């Protein structure tokens, strides 16, 4: 059951992101761009520009961009409302080395905590060890770091659910079924039961080959495809291509999917890939559909924006993500819990996130994660479709 709670809750969150909406002013069209450009200014105001980071709480994501900005808005909002100094330090390049360098600098600057979304699976152990020895709290968000060093991983949604959601959405779109509301699982079972055509093939356009979190989701997509309802109807093999989160590469790969015409539907579990694939399919006027993880404002050109439209007139009838601001705020709450409330991230231990925006006070419980550490899971993935897109494009 994924739906009703989120359906209302995040929709109201908009009023929370006061900065963004204030900046975006009245002009609707201009909103995404100006909120984009306003964001880095926020960052510097909140500390990184002034330079002295001693005792600050730092969010270190994969690379700069809308995605990062939105998460940081939630993070700094929560932290500052509790009276703490924050900074955002995402690198220019999506590389491990760049992040290691930044973490090392942060240790020297004696920050209080680092919440990181790693760019790779390996490469951080020593610098994390050094950070731990210096008494710095380490948590991860979005893309988990080595469980040995983190207290807790803040996961936007369980990997299983992300894998399953995307496969279900893809299969439904391949069969021409509009978003069925909360129970996609049942909708898939129903739709496939009556399906008698050729075995459906799903293509995946991922980021780079060694992005752990994406690989995890792809693994979970394959797991989902093992369920009996797919047998003989959907090929268990995913046709994987890697676009390195680079425009040209993503577009080339996207075009290959289209030219080959071997897959029936494409999943792009990366925002860059999803936009690239959307653009390719749209420009070519292709019937092929794409779904995956995307940011609403970036996807508005490829998706239906009002309930009375036919979703299948668009290349991406529906897609999913999570509330980025909420994710940021939750990571901030987790960090503060470790610092102030003795939350140790052990399995079963709990912490409480104060009410934030329209999300009520919630208690999260550390659960075992697939990598052997523990994590808290924010929610199920949030599905964007024709009924709610119009609201979201101004907020995220």
């Amino acid at each position, binding site marked *: 059951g994924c739906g009703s709670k989120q359906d209302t809750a995040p929709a109201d969150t908009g009023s929370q992101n006061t900065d963004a909406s204030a900046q975006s002013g009245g002009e609707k069209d201009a909103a995404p761009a100006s909120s*984009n450009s306003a964001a880095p200014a926020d960052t510097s105001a909140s500390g990184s520009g002034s330079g002295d980071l001693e005792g600050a709480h730092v969010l270190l994501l994969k690379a700069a*961009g809308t995605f990062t900005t939105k998460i940081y808005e939630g993070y700094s909002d929560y932290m500052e409302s509790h009276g703490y100094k924050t900074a955002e330090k995402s690198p220019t390049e999506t590389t491990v080395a760049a992040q290691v360098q930044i973490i090392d600098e942060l240790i020297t600057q004696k920050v209080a905590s680092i919440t990181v979304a790693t760019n790779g699976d390996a490469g951080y152990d020593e610098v994390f060890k050094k950070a731990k020895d210096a008494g710095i709290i380490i948590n991860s968000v979005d893309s988990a770091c080595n469980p040995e060093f983190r207290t807790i991983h803040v996961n936007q949604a369980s990997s299983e659910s992300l894998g399953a959601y995307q496969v279900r959405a893809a299969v439904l779109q391949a069969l021409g079924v509009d978003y069925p509301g909360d129970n996609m699982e049942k909708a898939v079972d129903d739709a496939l039961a009556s399906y008698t055509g050729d075995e459906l093939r799903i293509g995946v356009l991922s980021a780079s080959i060694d992005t752990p979190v994406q690989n995890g989701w792809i693994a979970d997509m394959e797991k989902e495809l093992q369920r009996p309802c797919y047998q003989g109807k959907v090929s268990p093999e995913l046709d994987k291509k890697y676009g390195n989160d*680079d425009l*040209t590469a993503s*577009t080339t790969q996207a075009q290959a999917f289209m030219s080959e015409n071997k897959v029936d539907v494409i999943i792009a579990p990366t925002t860059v890939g999803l936009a690239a694939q959307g653009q390719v399919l749209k420009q070519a006027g292709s019937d092929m559909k794409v779904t995956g993880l995307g940011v609403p404002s970036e996807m508005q050109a490829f998706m239906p924006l009002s309930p009375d439209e036919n979703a299948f007139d668009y290349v991406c009838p529906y897609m999913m993500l999570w509330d980025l601001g909420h994710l940021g705020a939750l990571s901030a709450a987790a960090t503060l819990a470790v610092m102030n409330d003795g939350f140790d991230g052990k399995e079963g231990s709990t912490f409480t996130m104060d009410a934030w925006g329209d999300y009520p006070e919630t208690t999260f419980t550390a659960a075992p994660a697939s990598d052997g550490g523990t994590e808290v899971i924010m929610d199920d993935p949030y599905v964007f479709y024709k009924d709610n897109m119009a609201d979201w494009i101004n907020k995220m």
Partner: protein
Amino acid sequence: MRKITGNKNFGLMVGLIVLLILAAVITPDLYSVGSLMNMLRNNCVFVFLAVGEMIVIISGGIDISISCIMALSGCVCSLLQFHHPQVPVFLWLIVAVLIGMVCGMFNGFVVGTLKVTPMIATLGTNYIFRGLAFIISSGAWWYPHQYQMTFQNFSIGKTAGIYNIIWFAALILILAAVFLNDTTPGRRIYAVGTNKESAKVSGIRESRVMLMSYTICGAVCGLAGMLYVANFAVGNFAIGDGFEMTAIAICILGGVSIIGGQGRVGGVFIAVLMMSIITSFISMLPGLSVWQDAIKGAIIIIAVGINIWTARSTRRRELKERGAML
């Protein structure tokens, strides 16, 4: 027949034909008109970059910063066309070229007048231009809905059934060929590239020629930046990262001598085609996505090897002919 095998691009052409046949057999889908056009369209940017890079290399320099010039122009154009939709779009064309020219001029000044080694100078400006692109864009991305259709049409609109960006590329190729082959400034570029000392006593000022070649390169790359974002309708400061290496590889594959003085537009054109086909071809082979780099690398080495080999055998044949006369 001899004229054909003796051609400098013989190795390349053989490679291209082999590739085309291979692709035809293994991935016939590549040959649907739409795929072919799309392939060309998306690789057109390399025509611009490689032509610009080629001009600089012939003059005896090298430009590592081309992809950053491209990013800077792409960002500025994206930003402007979004905020000033009322301005006639062809103006962005001029803006793009101007931005590129200014960047190129700066490179040319540092290399030509201040006499900094080209590799290092442009390695430095590479960082500077990319940084500027970030500052101007504030790290933001632009997405399709933020691009006016008229702007996008520079690339994806069609004239006579062919994408505009392809027309632009063809125009640049022809202009470059005429410029390099038949005009005084163009020949000056070869002259400086082949022997700076001789150029000096012939009254050709190296610093000016360098300034010119870098400026032209910059202008072409500036144009490339604009057409690139118009083509994909997505843009940010990081676009084109690493393209300079591909462009250099294309140039050398196309027979441009890395020490300057030699190179023809035709060779570069064939090399661009070859690279595009390799990229599209490999991405269409299921499971071969990860093989892309390895195969590209191997093909460049082999093609250059064939070129060296044909050059040598041509020379051997010449000698044999002379031997007969002895």
